[in-house]
């Protein structure tokens, strides 16, 4: 067995035979032409034929996988008709008196070079687009088909790289996965693959691609691995995972679009937890009713300086727009000495879990907090946004937050910057907040119970310490009683209460939570449908 590791860009497992895909081996010859006018005309004709072909491809892609994925072909048409590009080709034909193929190759190389030289990964990747359109013109010039990959039996496509138009033209009935030696998570190939539901691995460390042709293999899009001639053990494991994945997909199909209503008619909000824009696809794919916990930390973690208002606004706006009117609950910055961010310059602490973290930092370094609130308020114009504050222990903290919130709104008003309405809630993740939840409920619009921290603080057990694992009981009655109290206090004051911690996804407790009256469960995307399955078959009584 040979194992090659790469980057999985779409999850899924495929087992089958490898087909090595090679572009038409093209050897472009340079030769002199006598009639340069006729040659120019030949190029123009090829260009206009290629343009119609791209138009048709655009229409087909819109129909199959949507406008946003088809947009690339519209860009390709613009590139094809770009006067700088065509003038360069025609100049070479005229000035050197050479054939169109040669002129196209030289020009494409120059333009691709321009992108490759740019100091931006995204722009570098655009060199592939230039190569893609020039391939198309060359095929048209030489009357070759642009129809893409057509292998005989269904198999795993292995290639050096795949151009966007090649990927989209994969005959899905014949291709069960693809693996490329080059390519990045930014490439159109990766983006399209996700939409097309084909397991895919890019940047895969294969040396001799040709030697793989025709061999049995397994592609694991989850871990980004290609196993060639897998041993029995690997094959069995992969088969098992494949079945589990397919079982999940079947569940998805039958439950998608259904409402989360219990047998006695209570509607439960089943939302998703996300940690960044990359998780949005999974939220939509799993049909979550909204986002119950958007961990905003990634905005801070991925930078080496504080993210500014515009950067945050752009991200929040994108999430709000993508969710199209469904609830999006953004949790404000939740970091501390245990989640290190260099530029925050936090001191080492003896007891980080009980230390300077989350809302404690925000209320101390108010400017950081205000920047985030401004960005969220502005984004609220584009969707239904809720804000949730972590690590609350007192009513005073909520009062301070409200004071800061009204200052932020006054500043926006003074600057004439428009913003939207938001609801405000708090995380219940300290025993203190749970015990005084009757007082806190008067102050906010909702509660979301963070069971991970609530459990470790209630039981005084460090979750990181493996020696304590056997003592840790996730279903400890103290925790369940606290949850019950919180939900009751919320309802007494007319607000809703949900659970966004790990316990929310614990399907053995779902019925217990429904009986307690929990209104919302926010779980990682793959749990949305299993939870829905239980809800529609359970009663709250």
């Amino acid at each position, binding site marked *: 067995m040979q194992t090659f590791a790469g980057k999985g860009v779409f999850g899924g497992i495929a087992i089958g035979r490898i087909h090595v895909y090679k572009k038409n081996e093209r050897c472009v010859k340079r030769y002199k032409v006598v009639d340069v006018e006729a040659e120019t005309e030949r190029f123009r004709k090829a260009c206009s034929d290629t343009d119609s072909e791209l138009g048709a491809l655009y229409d087909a892609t819109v129909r199959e996988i949507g406008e946003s994925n088809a*947009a690339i072909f519209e860009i390709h048409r613009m590139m094809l008709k*770009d006067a700088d590009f065509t003038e360069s080709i025609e100049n070479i034909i005229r000035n050197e008196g050479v054939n169109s193929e040669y002129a196209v190759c030289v020009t494409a190389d120059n*333009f691709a070079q321009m*992108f490759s030289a740019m100091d*931006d990964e*995204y722009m570098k990747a655009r060199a592939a687009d230039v190569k893609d359109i020039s391939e198309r013109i060359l095929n048209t010039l030489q009357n070759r088909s642009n129809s893409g990959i057509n292998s005989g039996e269904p198999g795993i496509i292995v290639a050096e790289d795949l151009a966007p138009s090649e990927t989209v033209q994969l005959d899905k009935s014949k291709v069960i996965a693809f693996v490329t030696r080059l390519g990045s998570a930014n490439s159109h190939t990766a983006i399209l693959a996700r939409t097309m539901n084909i397991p895919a691995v890019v940047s895969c460390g294969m040396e001799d691609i040709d030697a793989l042709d025709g061999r049995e293999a397994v592609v694991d899009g989850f871990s980004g691995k290609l196993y060639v001639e897998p041993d029995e053990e690997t094959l069995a494991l992969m088969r098992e995972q494949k079945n589990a994945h397919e079982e999940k997909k079947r569940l998805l199909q039958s439950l998608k679009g259904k409402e989360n209503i219990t047998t006695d008619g209570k509607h439960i909000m089943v939302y998703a937890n996300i940690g960044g824009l990359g998780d949005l696809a999974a939220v939509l794919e799993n049909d979550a009713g909204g986002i119950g916990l958007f961990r905003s930390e990634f905005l801070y973690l991925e930078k080496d300086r504080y993210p500014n208002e515009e950067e945050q606004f752009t991200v929040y706006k994108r999430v709000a727009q993508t969710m199209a009117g469904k609830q999006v609950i953004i949790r404000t910055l939740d970091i501390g000495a245990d989640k290190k961010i260099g530029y925050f310059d936090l001191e080492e602490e003896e007891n980080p879990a009980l230390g300077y973290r989350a809302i404690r930092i925000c209320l101390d370094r108010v400017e950081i907090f205000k920047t985030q609130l401004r960005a969220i308020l502005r984004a609220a114009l584009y969707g239904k946004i809720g804000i949730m504050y972590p690590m609350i222990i007192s009513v005073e903290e909520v009062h301070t937050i409200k004071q800061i919130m009204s200052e932020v709104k006054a500043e926006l008003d003074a600057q004439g910057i428009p913003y939207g309405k938001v609801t405000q809630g708090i995380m219940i993740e300290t025993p203190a907040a749970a015990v005084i939840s009757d007082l806190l409920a008067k102050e906010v619009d909702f509660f979301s119970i963070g069971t991970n921290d609530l459990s470790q603080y209630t039981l005084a057990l460090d979750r990181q310490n493996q020696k304590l694992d056997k003592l840790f009981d996730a279903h400890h009655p103290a925790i369940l009683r606290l949850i019950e109290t919180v939900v009751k206090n919320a309802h007494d004051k007319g607000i809703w209460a949900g659970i966004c911690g790990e316990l929310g996804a614990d399907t053995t407790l779902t019925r217990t939570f429904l009986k307690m009256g929990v209104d919302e469960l926010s779980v990682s995307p793959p749990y949305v449908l299993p939870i829905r399955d239980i809800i529609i078959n359970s009663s709250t009584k």
Partner: protein
Amino acid sequence: MNKFDRRKERYTIMKEFTYTVTDPLGVHARPAGILVKEAVKFTSDITIEKDGKSADAKRIFGLMGLGVKQGHTITVRADGADEDAAIAAMQALIKENM
């Protein structure tokens, strides 16, 4: 380039505005495509300038080649019969997409 130099010699009054890009991705393929699509609707010459480098807004390679990123300031100019309409359309589009 020559075309623009000639135009300057005519001392025509053209319309222009500047804008600072806020989209974290900058002027990547999709916004560039949106600009070109709009620009070609006008007969006026429309240019986009960044750091003294200028590109024709009707040509996608040139636009992408400017390498406009978040925080960069660009100057958009329109010159021709429908320059008022062109500059208004470009301004609206750029504000919304970049």
